[in-house]
């Protein structure tokens, strides 16, 4: 990772605390996410990695009791500033969830949903182009091109998840957050998604939360280890897995807990 210093930071978090009511879920986390590398968040369950991920596109806003302190910036803009529009923010920072959640609409409509609400396409022809490109990028086009009008929920689990990725890509985001995207999938579907993450790298800044350390090692270039709401260690994936600096990281990697 010789070129780590030269990459541009897409998103930066500084001193982030997250509270659910009285309970503090995230304690003073600072981290940078860049365009060139896939960043993986690992850690035992309940360590706050998913919570932190959701602060990056303000999905925590939907939880009434959640409160975020500190600063998170996207291209230098504070995303929690009053001038930041959460609708635009989420279009720029897309998200893929743990369980595939296609809408109960056709495959085409699933992908067209984002561009439609954001007004990204003028007319049907443009929309067709966007849908095809997004599905191609998501590696699903060949499988579904003849049945775009079928329901998105009729696809297999792995296909559904790729549809969700395609749906996120369709609005042309700058960052894609993935919250354990493979935890509900079988190994073959998982391999396809991992391949897809490889392909998408460089176009989108990608952050992936995973409980599977092998997966983090396979898909990411940078890894952050969370424990009990704090960021224990953050660095090049190869370093974290082969030469962790912190005792806690080492214990986790070697399977002492988690």
């Amino acid at each position, binding site marked *: 990772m010789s070129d780590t210093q030269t990459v541009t930071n897409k998103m930066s978090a500084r001193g982030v605390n997250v509270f659910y009511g009285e309970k503090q879920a995230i304690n003073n986390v600072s981290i940078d996410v860049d365009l060139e590398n896939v960043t993986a968040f690992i850690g035992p369950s309940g360590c706050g990695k998913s919570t932190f991920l959701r602060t990056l596109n303000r*999905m925590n806003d939907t939880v*009434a009791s959640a409160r975020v302190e500190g600063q998170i910036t996207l291209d230098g803009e504070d995303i929690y500033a009053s001038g930041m529009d959460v609708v*635009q923010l989420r279009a720029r920072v897309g998200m893929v*969830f743990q369980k595939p*959640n296609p*809408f*109960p*609409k056709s495959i085409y409509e699933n992908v067209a*949903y984002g561009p439609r*609400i954001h007004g990204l396409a003028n007319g049907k022809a443009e929309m067709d182009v966007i849908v095809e490109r997004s599905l191609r990028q998501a590696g699903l086009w060949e499988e579904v091109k003849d049945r775009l009008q079928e329901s998105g929920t009729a696809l297999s689990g792995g296909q559904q998840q790729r549809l969700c990725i395609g749906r996120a890509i369709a609005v042309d985001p700058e960052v894609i957050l993935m919250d354990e995207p493979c935890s509900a999938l079988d190994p073959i579907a998982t391999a396809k998604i991992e391949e897809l993450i490889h392909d998408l790298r460089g176009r989108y800044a990608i952050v992936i939360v995973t409980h599977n350390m092998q997966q983090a090692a396979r898909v990411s270039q940078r890894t952050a280890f969370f424990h009990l709401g704090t960021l224990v260690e953050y660095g090049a994936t190869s370093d974290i897995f082969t030469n962790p600096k912190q005792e806690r990281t080492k214990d986790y990697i070697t399977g002492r807990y988690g």
Partner: protein
Amino acid sequence: MIVLIVLGLALVGWIVARARAMRLQASAGRLGTNSRPSQHGWYVALWTALPALIFLAVWANVMPGLVTNAVLGTPEAQSLPSDAFARSSILGEAQGIANGSGQTAFNPASQALVQPYRDATTRYSAIGAILAAILAFAGGAYAFSRVSPAFKARSRVERLVMFSLLLASLIAVLTTAGIVISLLFESMRFFALVNPIDFLFGLKWSPQSAALGYGNKDAFGAVPLFWGTVFIGAIIAMVVAIPLGLMSAIYLTQYARPATRKWMKPILEVLAGVPTVVYGYFAALTVAPALRNFAVSAGISGASSESALAAGLVMGVMIIPFVSSMADDSIAAVPQSMRDGSLAMGATTSETIRKVLIPAALPGVVGGVLLAVSRAIGETMIVVMAAGLAANLTLNPFASVTTVTTQMVQLLTGDQEFDSAKTLAAFALGLVLFVVTLLLNIVALRVVKKYREAYE
């Protein structure tokens, strides 16, 4: 009185048997008896009470006939007229005086029969009481003789309890059967007088003219009633209830703070708890005159002080909480991940609701609306009080229309012979109403169930 005696005997049986069982247990040791002493007690008590009570119930039904026969056998009854009707009216009057519900006899012949009635009643009551007491003793003695360490009193008692549980749940089946059979039976009699085709497709409803003897051919065309019912219950009421109920549910589930929701939900539910007669009074007294004045000042013709609109609007309000809670359930059943998915794409809350949640919840909402329609068309008091009696086949919401339920009330109140076509027509209307609401419910529950399964 005799019932109390029987129950008293049962209590005695319970105590004695329990005592005996306790003694047995003491001598045989704890593990020597199969059942606890109190279970033996129950066994004896039930054997004492049940046969006697069943006998009394049967006796109460048989006795009036025996009494009447006895009275007819007395010398006083020889002078009764042979005409069956006059005879039964005199007998009825005498009976009424004898048991204290009537006071004075209009017919002197009745007065003469009062004493024989009293005598016969006393005699047969005494016979019944004695027989019941004997039965109670016999049952109790039989059961008592069986009290022994090895006797399984508990399982006997429990079998009986089980049987009564089963009996209780069969009441529901009997009720359903009763409804279906009585509706079918009376409707058959109606259709013997009026052609079913004329009834179901006829355009003219005027049962009064039938009662006056103009024949039944053109008097019982129920289409205006069906239309009125649909117009009020399925159209006007739903135009009010669906948007208000749906939007209320959306606001309360998606926008309102939990504290607001906690307060507003019960308040809306109060709307469903207000008795329909209150809605009817409100519709007739406040809403209908206001609408009529409005229609008159707006120059709408055919405005009546009883209108489809008044009844429909108020009924719609009544249905709001129903639609709202069904919509609430359906929206709540859409997985949270669906909502998250849409929000994470940068959709606003209203876009998420309109484009994802409602389409996803649609089958559930439709099912709920069907249930609401079924409830609205079966609703009676609002339409009786506010919709009117004129069987108009009109599209004018300010005009008076009548409904199936209104006419059922109309046909069955007042003094009528039970066999007239008018009275029987109410049962035919009831049958149609029953079948339609049943179908709506079955379809609605299917739809809702399928929808629930889709997300499980």
